[in-house]
């Protein structure tokens, strides 16, 4: 065991001063030190993607990043996706299209998709399917996840273009 390091994690725009062992993963720090339990751990070896969060706007496996590596970089989790009580288009689309069953993988898929759509709002469908194959779901067979993300992507594009006008 090693001494703890004091860092500041900036999560969903809010600073969390935490003291963590250097070996502590970002996922554990988010869940246990920041109390943000929406980020789930499904495998802790970087395959399932349930712990996907955005760091510097890009999807990362929070189980494969140390908390100290995320210090000073903006982190976004599922708790920061909605605007107050107004659901993000992805959250609403997952709800409307039955894009989740047990819900355990859902935060990871939401953040993965949010990162992909923010990076490229006009992403080609085959690239979207490819990116979504990064994460595992055991309940839905993926069909309604793809449907949900496609619907949200279309909506976000329409919103984005009307905002640009």
């Amino acid at each position, binding site marked *: 065991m090693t001494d703890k390091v004091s860092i500041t994690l900036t999560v969903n725009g809010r600073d969390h001063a935490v003291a963590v062992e250097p070996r502590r993963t970002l996922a554990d720090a988010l869940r246990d030190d920041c109390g943000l339990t*929406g980020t789930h751990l499904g495998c802790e070896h970087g395959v399932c993607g349930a712990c996907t969060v955005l760091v510097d706007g890009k999807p990362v496996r929070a189980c494969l990043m140390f908390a100290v590596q995320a210090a000073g970089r903006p982190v976004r989790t599922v708790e920061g996706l909605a605007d107050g009580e107004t*659901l993000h288009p992805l959250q609403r689309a997952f709800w409307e299209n039955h894009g989740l069953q047990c819900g355990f993988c859902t935060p990871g898929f939401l953040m993965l998709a949010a990162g992909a759509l923010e990076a490229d709002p006009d992403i080609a469908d085959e690239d979207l399917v490819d990116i979504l194959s990064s994460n595992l779901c055991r309940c839905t067979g993926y069909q309604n996840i793809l449907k949900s993300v496609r619907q949200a992507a279309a909506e976000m594009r329409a919103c984005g273009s009307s905002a640009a006008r």
Partner: protein
Amino acid sequence: MTKGDLNAGGEISSGKISSGTGWIGRSIPRLEDPSLVTGRGHYVADAARGAAAVRFVRSPVARGTILGIEVPEGATVFTAADLQGVKPIRPVLNRPDYKAAGQPVLPADRVSFSGQAVAVVVADDAAAAEDAAEAVFVDIEPEDPVIDVDLALAEGASQVHPEAPGNVFVEGRMATPGLAAAFDTAAEIVSLELRSRRQSAMPMEPRGGVATFDPATGRVTLTASVQMPHMLRTGIADTLGIPEADLRVIAPDVGGGFGQKMSLFPEYVVLVWLARRLRRAVAWIEDRRENFLASAHGRDQAYTVRAAFTAAGRLTAVEADMRCNVGAFSCYPVTCGVEPLMAFAELPGPYDFAEYGARSRGVTTNTCTMAPYRGVSRPMLTFTMERIMDVAAKRLGLDPVEIRRRNLIGTFPHRSPTGLVYDEGSYREALEVAAEVIDVPAFRARQRAALAEGRHIGLGFSVFSERTGYGTPAFAARAMEIVPGYETVEMAMDPSGFLEVRIGASPHGQGLKTSLAQIISDEVGLSPDRIRVISGDTDATPYGWGTFASRSLVISGGACKLAAAKIADRLKAIAGEMLEAAAADIVLGAGEARVEGTDRRIALASVARAAYHQSHRHGGQAGLRETATYDPAGTFSNACHAAIVEVDVETGGVRIERFVVAEDAGILINPMIVDGQIHGGVAQGIANALYEELIYDEDGNLVTASLADYLPPTSAEIPNIEIRHLVTLSDATITRAKGVGEGGSIGAPAAVINAVVDALAPFGVELFEMPASPQRIRDAIRKAGSQGHVPRQAHD
């Protein structure tokens, strides 16, 4: 029997049975979802903050004698020596052929599989607990383990448990009187050896539990990711020898289970014991490696079958020897009989034949314990019958659709050779619908054209029955000492007109609360958002059996309908008095009670308030609280799956091009949720057919204990699934809904493998083993080639 159909919008257009306001049959978004999409769900790990961390020390060997356990200084470690008086887990089947060994919560002298917990460490946080667990040295004298099911049955195999000679835990045998004659007179006999390799249900959320101790009462509350909270409480209390009243079990949001989270595992007994011993909160959150090593496995089966056909392609007899590897112990409460006895009873499936002989054994080995996994044996049963059909069709010169057409059951009730009674279904119709959607003639033309280009595409069918929603009679027939099956619902409308529903069933992600609310809505005339379904808390719900065996919607839904009808009767009686009309003239709907044919109406909230606050005016019965229990005999859903695949003959890789499901689960309460069950089940079935395999080496080490080695499919492998619903209205259930939780996983493997075999027909390849991995497919192509089969070349 009447039939209805679903139109494109998913609304039931005919065959409607409810006189209510029509919530049944609508794809309403789930009531469960707002918290889950915002990260506000409550899974077990979310309750672990502040609790001491528990880590289990697990056996590194599959079989051996424990010589000693060395504990690092200063660490808090407990072993079997500390757990004196804790009884082993010993589920019982009252059959003379059942010989299961009790499973020690922590073993004192012997280990029986690699990964078995042998000691437990408690520390302030999870990392410290892992550090301490790594420093515990377990000295075990290893012995040669028994791993493979057929080697375990071989003459002279060493015995896994002294209680089970020949390593057989349970055995069923039967033969109908005309069996031998049917084979003697057969025009064609198909003899096959089939193999299903071991798999994991692999819920996204592994197991876990948090046990808290209340010093004021001495009670322990165990929050755990489980499917059967009441059963878990009974099992833990019995094992520890404490009153059930001293224990509360809560199943919070559960991140999938698929059967794996049904069983009483030693870890949960230890957690409750620790909370009582240490008088503090303790948490065990399993990691993925532990989940693979030590939760539960399934599907490790080997069958030897013979099937007799007439020259006209009529199946007359099936004889099967079925060996199921049930692992080291017998799972509680359903026992190790769950796979072999299911196989024994249900092999005939959707086919109409009279003569049946079976021997089915549950075989113990030094491997992780088998427990139910979605479909339980039926993926392998369906694989068996559907491979038989395709092989027979080829030999008899029949089309795969035609041979099934000639053999599927078509009159109801149908009695199977094992005595199961099937209610009305649409076995033949589902086959025809699937064949029509696929457009078989067009496919065959496309297949010929593809072959001319050197591409190998194939079409496979799979027809099956899915026994669902069965109550106590079915489980009693298995001679289970613990006979599950019924469901009880307690329903109370509060004075504000809101309905609280307490159920003994316990969902693990399938949207049950929404579906139940829809059933109740139609009875009481209240919208689903005014109905709160409470589940998964032994302090707050009636004793029930949780979720398994495609039962929750049928059985708990039936109990909801009965209880809601009682509430509705009381609402009508009180509303009648308030509106000065006969109760029989009151209709409930849109949150109101109305005198039929008039504009006289009153809000249900006012009726509810009167029930509590003006009870003296309304017959003196206070409040609005009703209970109902439902215990049906069971019902059979049915479906036909059809898959089109393309096989890369160079790599052995398979791509699924189309997947069609023609499915009949009776009345659909929420078609969107039903479709979701089918999608997920089919994805697991595809994984069963092509990808997932737990592999032990000969020393009993699990070599696939990570997601880098065990391969659940991603969105890149699972195709769009096209679903067509048939609606047979059966009287077997009071909602006329049938279960649908397992069908996808039951039917898909056979459809996929039949399609692969069809694609490889030019090579003369047959496949009888799942998963048909690229290695196995390439191996089969090579073997076929060495036997003189060469692919037809269109341009020779």
